[in-house]
C-alpha cells in the first residue's frame, strides 16, 4: 500500500504548512471516483485556527462533499500539519478519522528539522494506523 503524489503537491502542502504556522494547516487532494489518484489539490481553512487542532468548518465540509459528488470525484488524501510534533497521527487524529478510504497525510514543521519538513502517509481504518510508502513523482 502506498501513496503516489506529485512533487508539486508535496511542495504546495509544505508551503501551506509554513505559511499557516504556528497554526495547523489542512486540506484535501481529490481524484476521479475509484481511481485512487491524487489529481486536484484543495487547501481548506482550519476553522479551529489552532497550533494543536484542526477542523474543516462544517459549511466548508458540506460544500466539499457536494463538489466532490458533482465532479464524480473522491477524497484521496486528507492532510494536516503538526507544528511541533512528529508527522504521526495523534490519538485525536485516529479518533476522528472518518474517511476510511482516504490516505491520511501528516506534515511536520517542527523547529528541530526546519527548514526541512517531514511528509508521511497513513491509512487509518477502525482505529488502526498503518504507515505507507510515499512515492513522489515529477
Amino acid at each position, binding site marked *: 500500500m502506498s501513496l503516489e503524489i506529485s512533487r508539486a503537491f508535496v511542495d504546495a502542502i509544505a508551503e501551506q504548512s509554513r505559511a499557516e504556522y504556528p497554526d495547523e494547516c489542512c486540506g484535501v487532494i481529490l481524484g476521479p471516483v475509484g481511481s485512487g489518484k491524487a489529481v486536484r489539490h484543495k487547501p*481548506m481553512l482550519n476553522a*479551529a485556527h489552532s497550533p494543536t487542532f*484542526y477542523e*474543516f468548518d462544517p459549511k466548508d*465540509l*458540506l460544500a466539499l462533499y457536494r463538489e466532490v459528488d458533482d465532479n464524480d470525484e473522491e477524497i484521496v488524501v486528507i492532510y494536516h500539519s503538526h507544528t511541533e510534533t512528529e508527522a504521526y497521527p495523534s490519538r485525536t487524529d485516529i479518533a476522528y478519522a472518518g474517511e476510511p478510504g482516504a490516505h491520511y497525510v501528516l506534515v511536520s514543521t517542527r523547529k528541530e528539522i526546519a527548514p526541512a519538513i517531514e511528509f508521511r502517509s497513513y491509512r487509518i481504518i477502525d482505529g488502526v494506523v498503518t504507515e505507507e510508502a510515499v512515492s513522489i513523482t515529477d
Partner: protein
Amino acid sequence: MSIEVRIPTILRPYTQDQKSVEAEGSTLSAVISDLDAKYTGLGERLLENGALRRFINVYINDEDVRFLGGLEAPIKDGDSITVLPAVAGG
C-alpha cells in the same frame, strides 16, 4: 412522511452499505430514533448522552442543524438530511 437521509461511508456498515436511506419523523430526534429502529447501532454513532455527537455534522437541506434547533429541528416532508463525520484532528 418519508425523508431521505444520506449516510457517510463510515456509517454504511450499519445500513447494509446503502448510501441513502429513508426515515420518518417530525423532528431530527424522531428521525434518528426511526433510523436506529431500522438500522441497529446507528443511533449510538450519532448520539452520546442524548445529544448529537460533537464531531458528527448533520445538515437539513444543506443547513447545519446546530442553527436549526439541533435535535429538536423540525423535519418536513421532502426534506433531505445529510450526515458527515467532521474532518478534524490534533
